[in-house]
């Protein structure tokens, strides 16, 4: 009993240290979306590609197929890192819609897509950033996984690297595909 009284605080302290130490390795930006398990708020934005008649709307999601919503910008460095991954996903049949966030000059987003390749089914222009702010975008790139019913199921902050896709997003997409 006496022993226990001495050991207990030590055990507690070590446990606390372990929790803090593990916390060091976590990305403080990786916050869950405030819209987790909820549908995206209503929005409609104009097109990025001059040939498109429609840009992007919340009603483009949840059409019986899980999709990705990728928030990007031509001025964003990490977006270049994830771009080849998005191109590969497109060739594998993954539906990706894009939101071009806070583009600084009109047409820059389209130029970027024409030069680097266009992985998006639909892509909307959000020059003021207000549409992204409506669903809690803090920066670019961010990628949301949207389920068959159009609900947000995951928010990834930062570039979608091959590891992020294979370890996090791909298993989730597979799971969402098997959901009714």
């Amino acid at each position, binding site marked *: 009993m006496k022993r226990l009284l001495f050991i207990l*605080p030590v055990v507690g302290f070590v446990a606390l240290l372990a929790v803090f130490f593990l916390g060091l390795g976590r990305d403080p930006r990786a916050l869950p979306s405030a819209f987790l398990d909820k549908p995206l708020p209503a929005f409609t934005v104009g097109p990025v590609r001059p040939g498109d008649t429609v840009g992007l709307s919340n009603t483009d999601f949840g059409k019986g197929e899980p999709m990705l919503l990728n928030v990007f910008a031509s001025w964003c460095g990490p977006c270049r890192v994830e771009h080849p991954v998005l191109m590969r996903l497109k060739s594998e049949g993954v539906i990706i819609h894009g939101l071009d966030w806070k583009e600084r000059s009109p047409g820059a987003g389209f130029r970027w897509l024409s030069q680097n390749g266009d992985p998006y089914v639909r892509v909307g222009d959000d020059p003021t950033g207000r549409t992204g*702010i409506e669903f809690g975008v803090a920066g670019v790139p961010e990628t949301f996984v949207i389920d068959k019913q159009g609900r947000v199921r995951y928010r990834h902050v930062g570039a979608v690297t091959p590891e992020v896709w294979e370890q996090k997003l791909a298993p989730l997409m597979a799971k969402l595909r098997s959901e009714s």
Partner: protein
Amino acid sequence: MKRLLPIVAALALLAGPAAAVNPDEQLADPKLEARALKLSQELRCVVCQNQSIDDSDAELARDLRLILRERIAAGDTDEQAMDHIVSRYGSFVQLRPPLRWDTVLLWFGPVLVLVLGGVGAAVYVRGRSSTAAAVGALNADEEAELARMLDGDKVG
């Protein structure tokens, strides 16, 4: 003059950074502006995370300051304006976390640790004083030994 220079430089370094809220963002009505300022000091900038949106120079912080002011100018109460941001970015953006079931430990954890530590210390101190009492006074042999040692001290 040369001596003054380092002092001036030190004073310049001490000068606090001006608030990030820019003149063009401020509301014309000083009452509304005061409310907006107070709210923006309670909202965390999600880009820099340890600054309020009032302190932060991040572009997103500016956007949120403007949105906050738009809501207030449109007649929102403080709570409604706050909720507008919190509903989009989550309660993480509240620098003063609300008291909810999942924040109870955050609010009362330190008190809990203090109480546990206090109880532990009390038990320990009490245990020690009771062992001292149990040993009790010295018997005759011990008294003699003590006297011998003290004497020895004097001689030595």
